[in-house]
């Protein structure tokens, strides 16, 4: 099954595998947030709406919500983050993934950016 990587304007990445999407934050986002010290994860089975804040990343100084780019059900959470929240800083695109969501209906990628488009977008930020 082919995987597609997309980015949002809120600096999240979405890896699409069929009807399941894995979500994390970009390297730019982790560097802006600084040292992540706590990740408030949702529970598996929770339903999230598109645009809903489903997780919170806490740095020493501040808290940032992570918004869902899709509607669906939380299929998995990265439990490693409970004890090692620093994975979000160290490996934002890989070991620092946050959740997997089983999407309601068909995954819509039209409004999201691919890697090249996201890199161009970062230059404007």
């Amino acid at each position: 099954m082919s995987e597609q990587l997309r980015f949002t304007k809120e600096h999240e990445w979405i890896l699409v595998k069929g009807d399941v999407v894995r979500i994390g934050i970009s390297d730019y986002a982790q560097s802006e947030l600084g040292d992540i010290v706590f990740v408030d994860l949702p529970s598996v089975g929770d339903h999230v709406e598109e645009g809903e804040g489903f997780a919170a990343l806490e740095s020493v100084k501040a808290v940032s919500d992570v918004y869902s780019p899709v509607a669906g059900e939380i299929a998995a959470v990265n439990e490693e983050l409970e004890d090692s929240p620093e994975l979000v800083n160290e490996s934002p695109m890989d070991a620092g993934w946050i959740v997997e969501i089983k999407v309601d209906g068909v995954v819509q990628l039209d409004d999201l950016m691919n890697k090249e488009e996201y890199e161009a977008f970062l230059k404007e930020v």
Partner: protein
Amino acid sequence: MKKTPLTEKHRALGAKMVDYAGFEMPVQYAGVLEETKTVRTNVGIFDLTHMGEFELTGPGALETVNYVTTNDASVLKEGEIQYTCLTKEDGGIIDDILVYRTADGFLLVVNAANAAKDYAWIEQHLKSGTELKDLSDELTLIAVQGPKSAPLVEEIFNVSVADLKGYTFTEVTYEGEKVLLSRTGYTGEDGFELYFANALAEKLWDECLQKGEKHGVAPIGLGARDSLRLEARMPLYGNDISEETSPLEAGLSRFVKLDKESFIGKDFLQKQKEEGVQRRLAAFVMVDKGIPRQGYPLLNMDGEEIGAVTSGTHSPTLDYPIGMGYVDVAYAKPDTEIQVQIRKKLAKAKIIKGRFIG
């Protein structure tokens, strides 16, 4: 945005800069966790030039200081410093400040965000024979904080600080210019604050970094400054104290001298002391997971609202979340269990006694 004489140094060191009280200031260099650790184990240097400094001189200076502040400045000898509050008639805190007793009068060190308001307030209440001067734009302030701050300061100024007690200051020279060397800080560690003419700023900053290298020195931003002061349970103006809170509610009663003849707010504070405060600023640690943040509601174990968080963070030194907030006095006793509403969840917390660290 105002710059300090060290703004370019911060940029060159790769600091992330933010607007703080109208100044472009470094919020972090290496990161809040690492910077906090540096100050707890070695030594860190801070650019605090945004703070305001006022000089009060003349025969009316003592009377003026004692009228606008809650502590008793008449007990200060030359070279001594006291922490105190400027209060309004209704007991609300206009600012928390340091008062230095100098040879010719007093030096008041005030919070950057309150400097203009403080100056206007003091000017309005000047006793006759007092001259008030704003030195904020002429002075640079560098704080040197941490267990290795003393040897660093001794080497830079070629002096011994063995006899310089906490909350006292002395005058030293650097490049033939005067530097006020004060044994004070906002970190809970041993440390110094250096006040001097702007022209010395870049040279002295570089020298702190060079001579401090063997002590593990690093520059520290406002982010770590906030964690350090919260771990030491020191209030931050605008978060933990404000014009809506009194020094008695904030646990600052030892800096309020009600036996002083008269000062602004005395009648109210006398009455509040006799009747007892309704709420107190309490410190707490989390029992459940989650980080308390300013504004989050505090509830009792029955779920009734009893106050709100004023400061909260994940303590870099302790590696667990800590916070402060006002609670109904019935819940302010150490070991009382309370709850913090963190987003949609209620998380249990426990009131503690004293500082979080040390």
